[in-house]
């Protein structure tokens, strides 16, 4: 499927496309998961008050409450999923595109021409990021109108950096060197 950022250059080959690490989604969805479990945790806690409290949970009223509660928390979870799944870095033959879905109807796209990319930095911080191999990728262009693109939670950021720098070198060679 061609996203708007690639539709204007349909002949451009995509070399690499990466989404954020799954652990980033798990952390972001933590609130949703806690809310989904809340009616069931409440049922367990209230069961300590005796058989009359337990009897409440087989009733249609509890079923209705739980179903409607789950509907609302699913809406929240789906929003978090949408913001996660639409974030990506795309490296094509000529450009590197950083796409960040900040919220519904709020989207930031930074497109850098590869021959102008001067520096790519990778930053891995924290226990989980180190153990699960994900981190932040910064890409910066040279020139008077220097541009900086940043994306957090990228899996195997070293590989992404290598691909960007290798293709940047190819683009510079094709343009006659620098």
């Amino acid at each position, binding site marked *: *499927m061609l996203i708007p950022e690639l539709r204007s250059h349909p002949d451009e080959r995509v070399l690499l496309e990466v989404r954020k690490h799954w652990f980033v989604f798990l952390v972001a969805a933590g609130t949703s998961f806690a809310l989904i479990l809340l009616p069931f945790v409440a049922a367990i806690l209230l069961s300590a008050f005796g058989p009359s409290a337990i009897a409440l949970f087989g009733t249609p009223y509890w079923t209705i409450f739980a*179903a409607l509660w789950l509907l609302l928390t*699913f809406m929240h979870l789906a929003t978090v999923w*949408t913001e996660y799944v639409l974030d990506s870095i795309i490296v094509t033959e000529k450009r590197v595109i950083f796409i960040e879905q900040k919220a519904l109807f709020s989207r930031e796209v930074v497109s850098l021409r590869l021959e102008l990319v001067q520096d790519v930095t990778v930053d891995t911080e924290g226990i989980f990021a180190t153990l699960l191999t994900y981190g932040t990728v910064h890409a910066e262009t040279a020139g008077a109108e220097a541009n900086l693109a940043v994306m957090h939670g990228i899996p195997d950021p070293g590989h992404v950096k290598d691909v960007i720098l290798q293709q940047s070198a190819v683009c510079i060679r094709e343009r006659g060197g620098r």
Partner: protein
Amino acid sequence: MPLLTAIIIAIAGIYALYGVVLAYHWFRFSTSTGIAVASAAIYYAAGLALSLMALAAAALL
């Protein structure tokens, strides 16, 4: 319980309309058709199952 049924239908309606907003994002901005289709299918299947469960429980009252 017509009032309870109306509340359930109203919440299910909000859920469905919100799904249209989400589906717009999935199908317009996702680079993978599979992810877009799977997201929409799971979202609406869960919504349908939970709404029917709530309506069935309301019918028992």
